């Protein structure tokens, strides 16, 4: 019987090709391609580059905070626009951030959406480690020394000191991070406060939480 060598060659060639192309050096490795980062916030999902603070987080968090601030009676029902000083947020996460960017966006949101309801003052943060309380004390001293205005002399004619603040707006970023062979996880709690300068009472506080997870490509594990 005559052997059909052409068929044999083809089958052999296909077998070799299947071995070469179908074989994978990553066999036995779980998720060799990694798992794309997934934003865990329920109202928005998307692919992101990392598990840290990103622009979409900034937008979502500051939008929520601005809306929340506008709803409180101290702002919504104030006879005269309260004066607010922005105090840099504290970063207690593992991600280095531009600390001013959150408050800058909240301020611009408030100025855009509620023009005239709140007025903002420019104040330096002072020393690098100056905690909020020191800043509040300084504000009170400035008022007491007459170097800035207080409620008592708001309407006096000819007063030309710097304006005094009614509230300090500040915030804090707290983080919880974990890394195992299953991937990398980062949770960040964004909390913001409006603090009454006279009483140091917290008149408003709100938070936002974002959790992200991802898994590196096996080539980096």
């Amino acid at each position, binding site marked *: 019987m005559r052997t059909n060598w052409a068929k044999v*060659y083809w089958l*052999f060639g296909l077998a070799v090709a299947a071995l070469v192309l179908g*074989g994978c*050096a990553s066999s036995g490795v779980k998720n060799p391609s990694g798992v794309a980062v997934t934003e865990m916030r329920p109202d928005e999902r998307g692919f992101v580059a990392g598990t840290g603070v990103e622009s979409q987080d900034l937008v979502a968090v500051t939008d929520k905070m601005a809306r929340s601030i506008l709803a409180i009676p101290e702002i919504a029902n104030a006879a005269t626009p309260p004066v607010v000083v922005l105090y840099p947020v504290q970063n207690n*996460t593992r991600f280095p951030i531009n600390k001013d960017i959150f408050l800058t966006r909240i301020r611009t949101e408030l100025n855009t959406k509620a023009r005239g309801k709140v007025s903002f003052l420019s104040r330096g943060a002072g020393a690098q480690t100056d905690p909020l309380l020191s800043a509040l004390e300084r504000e009170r001293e400035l008022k007491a020394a007459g170097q800035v205005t207080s409620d008592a002399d708001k309407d006096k004619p000819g007063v030309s000191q710097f304006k005094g603040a009614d509230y300090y707006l500040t915030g804090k970023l707290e983080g919880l991070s974990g890394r195992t062979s299953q991937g990398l996880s980062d949770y960040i709690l964004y909390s913001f406060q409006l603090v009454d300068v006279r009483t140091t009472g917290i008149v408003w506080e709100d938070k936002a939480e974002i959790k992200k997870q991802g898994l590196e490509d096996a080539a*980096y594990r």
Partner: protein
Amino acid sequence: MPCSSAGVGPRALWLLVSALGAGALLGGCATSPPAKAWARTGDPLADGLAAIANEPARDRVLWQYRTAAVAMRRGQFAQAKALLDDALLTLGGISAGDKSARQARSYFHREAKKAFRGEPYERVMAYYYRGILYWIDGEPDNARACFRSAQLQDSDAENKQYASDYLLLDYLEALATAKLGGDPTDALKRAQALAKLPQPPALDAGANVLVFVEYGNGPTKYATGEYHEQLRFRPGVSVHQSAVLKAGDQTVELAPSDDLNFQATTRGGRVMDHILGNKAVFKSATDSVGDAALVSGAILAGDHDTRDVGLGLAAAGLLSKIVSAATTPAADVRCWDNLPQYLSFAALRLPVGAYPATVEFRGQGGSPIANLTKSFTINVTSATADTVVFVSDKNQ
């Protein structure tokens, strides 16, 4: 009935051509565009910047690491900051879906094809240097963030005993937390638990002069195994074993807090090592199959009745040999080659003023190493704001 010789030739030829074509195709996959030509000047900073601009994109982060270290040692902190910020953008992202990483896992591309990020000890150092730079800029909270990220880079060691075991990173996290008015207890306890002898100095939140010191030569990488598929670390050799800081009337012993040789060699196996092992097995198997097929084919081709089979088998053997040759299990040995071996730190209280200072490096037995003492001036401009000094035995 045997095949006629007229019919054998074209089939065997076709198989040989196919084999050679496949070989060329597979071999071609492993090649990559050459780096653009650029002239070395001998100045590591200028050369590093030129390499970043001209070397393949996959080596960009590697050159940024190296060049940032040079800039740090020259006191060109703005330059170092820019380089590290760009490198950390890559490092901070999740690599899932990275095309170069996918290629690096394939049989026919080298691991070095992937965009360089470095092994954990290298990634740790990128964050560590950036943390120092943040502290220089008066941002201890961002510095702390970098130290935390650095520690996290070291958290996936095979043996959990060696996970996140940089003493200095926990200590600096504690110090920054204390300075920011927080509770440093947890981080300080972790640092103390990690300490071999001696224990880290007591935490002084009132210290206003922070001195970061590094010395010695860090580890390098090499590959071993039949196909160089096993990544290994060669410890750096350092004559320096300790250092002493003298500033004003204060003298501080700068014992090593962390040893990068230890860190590099205690990480354990990587997932990628498993993939490279698979590549090596595949390379070896296809090579053996090729040998067997070639020998068998040659024997069979000698007989007129089995000549067709023999030639076909030989062609398949050749193809298998070509596939084997194109398989690249070699481990990636690109490394951040100008790292120090030892990291050390001191915190002092100094009133406002200018203070002549020295860091004296000492060898085995505590004797000073000639011509290696670094002299500088510490300018303290505030009793409350931190003055940060970075000293390397490689300072230029």
